[in-house]
């Protein structure tokens, strides 16, 4: 590790590694600092991504694909379910391997990565941010850089230190818990989503297959809608009912900022990507691919900025993000707000009306068009929501 780089990336999740990869390939010298001892671990994620999303960045590899799926099923509060087709294929990943591969791609382009390196503040020269303070191998060190990228996930603080308010409101924060279960009966080709006030207020329970007999069974609930109980209590009740004898291989907590993109994702020489920038799809809570898209755009703009020696060029990143995905996330945010306001009766009705459709019309769009005829503005985008 040197004491000076063009760019320091805080956090080696999918967004940070991708930003590092593209900044390095654009000619910048890049250091990635990760507080955990291990890239990609612990895995706080349901691990579902679309094929189209992944292939933009990396060739699908069976080493990090636990299951391939082609349908998803919505289970309504009264237990009736409907399983529309997906437009394409989706995967359930092994993120501990996937995140490693993304980090390796960054290293291959020339980025350096250091784990067990906790960034605790920005380094300043007067008002200017000139790098970061970090604890590396139990020692406090200052490392200088022209640009600091906050890729520090849901717990992001880099933006706050740099004067960008990245606090997630309790309305938008999904409080999550997940168990990876084994020894259970689980259909491999399908992603399950359970909805309902008593199942997961303001969110859903997911069951994503992870190979024979195994699945990620998780929950996200809206912090301000869930009244008395915590996410882990809701989840344990669900699992107790559905999979009482399962083996529990992993047990994790997590949070997902299901919000619109932060108002600012660039300020002077500070850049935010991924969860830190609230680049999660607000309807589905999926943030792997969208965070990588954010990271890629940021990395490209950083490469250009360094070769032009013009920090003002960083603003391009915000513009390109909004053109590529930011505007869609605003639409998805509206859809999330509408869905989370549905009562259990409405959810049941959507499912029942959908089941009346002939099989070939049971696409996501078909179902919602039939059921929500009185809210036509929402219908068409719903089909794209879960896997964009």
């Amino acid at each position, binding site marked *: 590790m040197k004491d000076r780089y063009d760019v320091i990336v805080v956090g080696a999740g999918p967004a940070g590694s991708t930003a590092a990869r593209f900044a390095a390939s654009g000619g910048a010298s890049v250091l990635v600092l990760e*507080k955990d*001892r291990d890239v990609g*671990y612990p895995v706080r994620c349901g691990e579902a991504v679309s094929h189209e999303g992944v292939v933009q960045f990396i060739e699908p590899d069976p080493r990090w694909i636990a299951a391939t799926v082609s349908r998803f099923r919505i289970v309504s509060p009264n237990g009736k379910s409907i399983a529309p087709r997906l437009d394409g294929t989706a995967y359930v990943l092994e993120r501990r391997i996937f995140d490693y591969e993304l980090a390796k791609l960054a290293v291959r382009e020339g980025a350096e990565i250091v784990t067990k390196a906790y960034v605790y503040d920005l380094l300043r020269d007067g008002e200017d941010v000139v790098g970061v303070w970090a604890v590396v191998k139990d020692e406090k060190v200052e490392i200088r850089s022209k640009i600091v990228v906050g890729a520090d996930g*849901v717990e992001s603080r880099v933006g706050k230190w740099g004067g960008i308010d990245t606090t997630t409101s309790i309305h938008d924060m999904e*409080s999550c818990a997940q168990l990876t279960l084994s020894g259970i009966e689980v259909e491999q080709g399908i992603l399950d989503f359970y909805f309902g006030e008593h199942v997961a207020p303001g969110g859903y329970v997911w069951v994503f297959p992870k190979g024979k007999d195994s699945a990620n069974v998780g929950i996200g609930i809206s912090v301000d809608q869930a009244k*008395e109980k915590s996410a*882990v*209590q809701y989840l344990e009740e669900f699992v107790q009912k559905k999979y009482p004898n399962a083996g529990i291989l992993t047990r994790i*907590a997590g949070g997902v900022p299901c919000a619109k993109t932060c108002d600012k994702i660039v300020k002077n020489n500070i850049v935010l990507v991924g969860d830190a920038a609230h680049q999660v799809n607000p309807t589905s809570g999926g943030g792997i691919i969208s965070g990588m898209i954010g990271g890629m755009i940021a990395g490209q703009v950083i490469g250009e900025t360094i070769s032009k020696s013009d920090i003002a060029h960083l603003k391009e990143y915000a513009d390109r993000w909004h053109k590529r995905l930011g505007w869609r996330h605003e639409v998805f945010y509206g859809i999330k707000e509408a869905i989370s306001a549905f009562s259990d009766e409405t959810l049941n009705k959507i499912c029942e009306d959908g089941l009346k459709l002939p099989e070939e019309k049971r696409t996501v769009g078909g179902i919602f068009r039939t059921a929500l005829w009185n809210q036509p503005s929402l219908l068409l985008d719903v089909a794209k929501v879960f896997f964009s």
Partner: protein
Amino acid sequence: MTSSPELCSNQREEGQVARNTPLMIHIVPGKCDFCGCCVGVCPEDAIELMEAEIRIIDARCTNCRKCVWACPWEVIEFHREGIDQLPKVVSLPQERTPSF
């Protein structure tokens, strides 16, 4: 060790709460999963979260309780009477080891 009649953990009881003294937000030792959900909702940047250590920064905390409600794991508690007698720094007895 943490049960107390004043404990209002995870309840949406809003209202005025005195600021800062004594600290009313308490992290139950040994329970945290270090997931960061609480840090994401803290409006005061009053939570320090490392690989296996979490700490409330007393001087910044306003006792707003958003972290209490957000925590998926029921790790953070609110004590109306303050918690000066309870430990504030919590680390794991040993570091996580990767499982592969």
